[in-house]
């Protein structure tokens, strides 16, 4: 690694985070399951395929329009499991709390974790709490891990996209990223954008019921956004991807705030959206299944895969031009003026 200190960029979910994983973590924990680098690990236990995933949640602010860190922590791991094609079953929860944190806020966060678990149909079956001296963490960090079983007919992974596949996005882009940004200290935009944090397992179940083996890749474009997720899939599957700007749903408020700050919604986080790569003949059925979920009403077919330019993602722009969509490099920083 070229830097002798870890920078915030290393946590951005973009290229620099990948480099950290590739150069520092993979060589140590070298094994074929990890090497797949899916949203969760997929392996066999007693003849059943199981998905296992973990994620730590740090968000500023901890309460944001449309949700809070507790809900996010449950939904995030539920979604990681769902993206492996698994039916999420059990979760663990570990809380690291800063000394002096208001009990009332902790109660609110835990209650919201409870509601999220119930809604997703998972149980939190083990946990841990630690309290650290003031300043050792920022208010509260939460880690959740989860376990789920993958039904026999289901086979989704990042490397399974095929030329001809159709790409479905389940709703509007960048809502979570913008809702958090707008509430950050120093930014006081009066916007009505709410985080999209939500469990996706119910939607995924409906999708498999509609198309089963026709779904090749599932992904929730969280950190790093849609742009980064598509690049990973293009690279791992060895396909070229083309998306169409005018078909990508973005709320007007989100587009406006992004423009103001010089941010690209393609690289902002989503916490309740998925992308699905499906065989063309199944696309319509899958799209219908997604749209039948209340969180998937704005779903759209946004692009397709081809054998041309493997590993590359292109965008057909609104004015009929073409440009590349690259992976996010480091964190997006607000620009001058």
């Amino acid at each position, binding site marked *: 690694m070229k830097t002798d200190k870890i920078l915030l960029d290393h946590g951005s979910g973009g290229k620099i985070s990948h480099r950290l994983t590739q150069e520092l973590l993979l060589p140590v924990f070298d094994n074929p399951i990890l090497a797949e680098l899916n949203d969760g690990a997929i392996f066999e236990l007693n003849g059943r395929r199981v998905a296992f995933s973990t994620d730590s949640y740090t968000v500023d602010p901890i309460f944001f329009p449309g949700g809070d860190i507790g809900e996010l922590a449950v939904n995030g791991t539920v979604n990681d499991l769902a993206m492996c094609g698994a039916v999420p079953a059990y979760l663990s929860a570990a809380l690291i709390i800063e000394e002096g944190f208001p009990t009332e806020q902790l109660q609110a966060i835990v209650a919201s974790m409870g509601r999220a678990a119930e809604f997703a149909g998972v149980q939190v079956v083990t946990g841990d709490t630690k309290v650290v001296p003031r300043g050792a963490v920022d208010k509260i960090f939460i880690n959740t891990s989860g376990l789920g079983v993958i039904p026999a007919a289901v086979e989704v992974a990042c490397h399974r996209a095929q030329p001809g596949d159709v790409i479905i996005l389940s709703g509007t882009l960048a809502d979570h990223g913008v809702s958090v940004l707008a509430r950050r200290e120093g930014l006081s935009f*009066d916007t009505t954008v709410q985080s999209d944090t939500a469990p996706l397992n119910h939607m995924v179940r409906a999708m498999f019921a509609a198309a089963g083996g026709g779904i090749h890749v599932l992904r929730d474009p969280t950190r790093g956004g849609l742009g980064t997720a598509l690049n990973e899939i293009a690279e791992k599957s060895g396909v070229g991807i083309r998306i169409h700007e005018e078909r990508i749903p973005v709320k007007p408020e989100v587009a406006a705030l992004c423009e103001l700050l010089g941010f690209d919604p393609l690289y902002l986080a989503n916490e309740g959206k998925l992308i699905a790569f499906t065989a063309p003949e199944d696309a319509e059925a899958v799209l219908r299944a997604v749209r039948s979920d209340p969180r998937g009403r704005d779903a759209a077919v946004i692009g397709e895969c081809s054998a041309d330019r493997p590993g590359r993602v292109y965008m057909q722009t609104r004015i009929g031009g073409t440009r590349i969509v690259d992976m996010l490099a480091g964190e997006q920083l607000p620009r001058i*003026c």
Partner: protein
Amino acid sequence: MTIKHSEEYRDAELSRRLVEKIRQTSRRPIRLMEVCGTHTVSIFRSGIRSVLPQTIALLSGPGCPVCVTDQAEIDAFVALARQPGVTVATFGDLMRVPGSASSLQREKAEGRDVRIVYSTVDALAIAQKDPGRQVVFLGVGFETTAPTVAAAVAAAAGLKLANFSVISAHKLVPPALEALMAIEAVRVDGFILPGHVSVIIGLDAYRPFFERHRLPCVVAGFEPTDILQAVDMLVGQIEADRPALENAYPRAVSADGNAKARKVLAEVFEPADACWRGIGRIPASGLRIRAAYAAFDAERRFGLTLPEAKPPKGCACGEILTGKKTPPECALFRKVCTPLDPVGPCMVSSEGTCAAYYKYSDA
């Protein structure tokens, strides 16, 4: 702050019609320079280059505020961050720009107090909240940003704040245009002038420049259709041999600009010579804090001197900012210099030309 969304200006149909018209009118091979970094990004993001006819080459000019900031100024920012008791407040873009030995981002990782703010007002608020620390705002930007900085300095004076100051590295657009014309190798047939800057200074601010050079000049907004509109007007002027100073962004830009913003600007700042990366010293192209507000001038408060600093070796930012080269012509582009390991500021800033080429084009 309320936000007006601009989807309505993104009319795909209108864009297609404009492209069609440009294709029909454009005969002569021409080079148009977009002076503003926000234009550069919009042009790349919307794929405008891919729809324009071969006759039209778009060049990016010295309009990315981070990119034109002199190496010595970046070094001064880093030096400030290292001073004990100092909190540096900055726009995000500047964080990664490599100075001669370090960057603000690195200094922050070392534990120095460097904070990203979204406006000067936020920096002022930090100073009020923490009287024990000297808060220095890094004033980088053009006529668009400078009035807000001026307003903050005036407010700090009103509040008699003893722990707030500004280092002014602001730059002015019209003198830079003038300086560009003086560089021999620069060949431009028309300018797409910046929208936001023009909102403040007004169309007439370019009049003397236009009268001296009689080159086609059009002020443009930032939507793809705005830019295509400006290109269409420029092509029209060139093909008809009738250079003019025109406004393709009348919904935001007036003849004399924003009087209030200009007043506070003149109250706090006065023109001064400034060093531009790639161009060098340009007379009266920067802004210095007036003597009446000397207490808020970080350069004076901290006795900063800006030692000569050389730009990074092999970096062609200077030639790129003046339209003499495009990023793929820089030997380091993509090979050594990437957004992750930027060598020059043009690769760092989200509005930098090298970053735009890297992110959005195949070149």
